[in-house]
């Protein structure tokens, strides 16, 4: 093979890749890439909300791309990865104080650019779920959790399951609406335990 031929091949390969990328602008993949580019350029730091927050992890990117309807293979893999990443309580206990949990469940604060870094985030629970029968201002994006413990039972297996759902809801359903409170560092281990107690403690207003 002579030098001229090599150069000729290289040029035509380069040309082909240029025309391919021009076409890519109109395909779904090209538009996804362009969207990511625009989003990365058009958002900026404000307060505690840094511009880097628009960078997606694989789960966020996949759920966006497939509009929350993942191909089965990807869904299974992502859910397994999320499950493996759950950090279980070192003391093997899952239940905290339901009263602290109720306070946490009421608070919708946390992680917006108008929140302060030093103020701990709330659980945001009532924004989307019914919990205590006494609270009528509850949202309906998530299922009702009224009588959650009464229905499911306060067994250790259920405590562990409940802890995992709050820690990382995506371990069970990769594109769930619910935030990954433990996985993303929104709530501490102790706070998650308090919420488990709110849901499962027989004395909690959720089960009364």
């Amino acid at each position, binding site marked *: 093979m002579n030098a001229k031929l090599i150069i000729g091949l290289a040029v035509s390969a380069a040309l082909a890749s240029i025309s391919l990328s021009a076409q890519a*602008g109109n395909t779904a993949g090209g*538009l*996804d890439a*362009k*969207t990511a580019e*625009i*989003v990365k*350029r*058009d*958002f*900026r*730091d*404000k307060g505690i*909300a*840094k*511009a*880097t*927050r*628009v*960078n*997606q992890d694989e*789960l*966020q990117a996949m*759920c*966006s791309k497939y*509009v*929350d309807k993942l191909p089965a293979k990807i869904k299974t893999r992502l859910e397994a990865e999320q499950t493996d990443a759950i950090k279980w309580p070192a003391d093997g206990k899952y239940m905290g104080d339901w009263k602290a949990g109720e306070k946490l469940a009421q608070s*919708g604060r946390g*992680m*917006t*650019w*108008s929140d302060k870094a030093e103020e701990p985030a709330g659980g945001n629970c*009532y*924004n*989307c779920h019914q919990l205590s029968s006494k609270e009528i*201002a*509850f*949202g*309906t*994006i998530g299922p009702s959790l009224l009588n959650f413990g009464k229905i499911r039972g306060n067994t250790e297996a259920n405590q562990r399951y409940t802890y995992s759902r709050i820690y990382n809801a*995506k371990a069970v359903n990769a594109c769930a*609406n619910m*935030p*990954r409170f433990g996985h*993303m*560092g*929104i709530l501490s281990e102790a706070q998650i335990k308090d919420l488990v107690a709110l849901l499962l403690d027989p004395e909690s207003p959720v089960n009364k």
Partner: protein
Amino acid sequence: MNTSNVKKLIPLLVLATSCAATAAENEISDSDRIAQYREMISDGNPADFDEMRGEELWKTVAGPKQATLEKCDLGKGAGVVKGVYTELPRYFKDTGKVQDLESRLLTCMTTLQGIPEEEITAKPFASDKKASDISSLATYVVGQSKGIKMAVSTKHPQAKEAYEIGKRIFNYRAGPYDFACSTCHATSNVRIRMQDLPNLNVRKDAQTAYASWPAYRVSQGLTRSFQWRLNDCFRQQRFPEPKFASEATVALTMFLAVSANGGEYAGPGLKR
């Protein structure tokens, strides 16, 4: 707006103030309070003040070039405001961009009046109980589209692309909570606490929601623009701040406006 309208608004303001006081005393529900408030001001809306302010600004010389905005082309020719909002965002040949109302007003203020862009974008929204010029101008312009059907076109390839990108931004999940616009606005008949949420993938919901912005927010005592509405959504999504009039916000607006096509524009609206 003429002087008889101004006179009409004075008793309205008195009523609005006394209404707020009564509501606080009786501890009636938010939706009742809004319904009562809406009825009281069915003859007008505090946003009318902002509309008047915007009209004044439109016709007053300003900036280093000492010009009015009466030669501003919002899509239907220089100076035309009637009905323009129902066809925005659209592709503009002179800038080579798809622009929404606020980004287009920004173009007019910088080119016709010579006001530096940074001066406008530093504080583009009403704050500290004070309106911003660009936001009042937007309120004035949208008021001239009341009762006209939304008819935003995606014929131009760039307009079509903006729509497609906007749709993707609507579904773009990110941040510590993994939220996208679609997390709250792609399911019917759900709410956050007591606040009903429109499903923006359903035409009727999208039409009603889009047609009611910009709006006077009773709780804030300010008229809020559409760019502000998107900005506050992203705040609650736990996202960083979208840059004012950026391509991302215009694309998202394009997606939402097209979803609202066919609906009668009804703003400026009135919200809790």
